[in-house]
């Protein structure tokens, strides 16, 4: 348990603020890349952060059909979950299982956010959140294969394994691909982004305005940072070590995600699940071969 010894609250708060700023800038970069590919000038890179802050001074209107305590509480639960995942993963290098658990509960939170407002669009978004969870959780379960390879589920142990045996991306390439598909599915404007598809306005967050939308976006930014960090650490742990290398790695992945999101139309919900399952099966094939 020596990973629980030195880090204190001010340090963690600083890390959370840094992760929020970097995550926001990366999402802004992704929007910029999508716009440039589509021949538009696009918003400035800082726009996603400004957008989040803008919601803090916008009027909060709560739908009459919403179930009030849940409507606010579930958004804060989602935010808290990603803060917890950030602390356990990138800050403490603690158990990977808790980060995965946060991801799993975050899907439940998305479902709850959709149901809480009472709007048909958000309900449709929440149903799709469950549907996408059935596809994304097997992808997340490939992390178990990382355990069979490294014999540890503590992130610092996984990094040490890679320092001795080389990056896991060379040993479990299909698993890395499956987790990369998970990143694609969580990126905005993704082909697998059925949860907030424009066919259902903004999906589960259609009826969330003002401050509550700002808090929701804050959680999403931190979540994006955590997922990118997890991918880089789990599969490129021996190559990427310093904060600068992490920022470069995250930027490169964001650029790739931007290209994918700009050039690929959104697939139908059932096709999205089917494609993601194919990658999960490929990862299992990788496990059998290894």
């Amino acid at each position, binding site marked *: 348990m020596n990973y629980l010894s030195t880090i204190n*609250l001010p340090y*963690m708060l600083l890390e959370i603020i840094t992760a929020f700023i970097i995550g926001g800038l990366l999402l802004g970069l992704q929007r910029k890349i999508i716009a440039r590919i589509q021949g538009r000038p696009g918003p400035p890179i800082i726009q996603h952060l400004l957008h989040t802050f803008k919601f803090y001074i916008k009027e909060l209107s709560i739908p009459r059909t919403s179930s009030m305590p849940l409507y606010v509480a579930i958004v804060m639960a989602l935010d808290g979950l990603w803060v*917890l995942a950030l602390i356990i993963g990138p800050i403490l290098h603690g158990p990977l299982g808790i980060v995965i658990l946060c991801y799993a509960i975050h899907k439940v939170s998305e479902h709850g956010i959709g149901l809480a407002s009472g709007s048909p669009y958000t309900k449709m978004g929440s149903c799709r959140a469950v549907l996408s969870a059935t596809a994304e959780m097997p992808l997340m379960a490939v992390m178990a294969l990382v355990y069979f390879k490294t014999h540890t589920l503590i992130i610092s142990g996984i990094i040490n394994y890679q320092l001795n045996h080389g990056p896991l991306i060379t040993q479990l390439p299909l698993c890395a691909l499956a987790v990369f598909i998970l990143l694609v599915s969580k990126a905005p404007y993704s082909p697998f982004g059925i949860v907030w598809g424009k066919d259902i306005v903004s999906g589960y967050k259609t009826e969330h305005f003002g401050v509550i939308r700002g*808090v929701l976006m804050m959680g999403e930014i931190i979540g994006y940072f955590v997922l990118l960090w997890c991918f880089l650490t789990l599969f490129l742990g021996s190559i990427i070590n310093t904060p600068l290398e992490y920022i470069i790695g995250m930027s490169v992945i964001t650029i790739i995600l931007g290209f994918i999101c700009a050039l690929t139309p959104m697939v139908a919900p059932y096709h999205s699940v089917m494609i993601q399952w194919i990658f999960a099966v490929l990862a299992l094939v990788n496990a059998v071969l290894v």
Partner: protein
Amino acid sequence: MKKETKNSILAIVTSLPIILGLITPPSLAVSIVILTIFIPLSAYYIGLVLMARAKTKKDEKERTKVTFTGY
């Protein structure tokens, strides 16, 4: 009690554990609990206070605006 006052008090109450934690850092487990629970809560209540202030400013601007009524 006015809604704005209540929100201001709640904003202070929810940010207080974080501020106290910055002054005298607690144990790691307590720090995790404080940050996980109070960051979203304080973000929400501070947001409500900011929103109320922005609204008051906007209303004030509207109220004091000199409109040209024409001849």
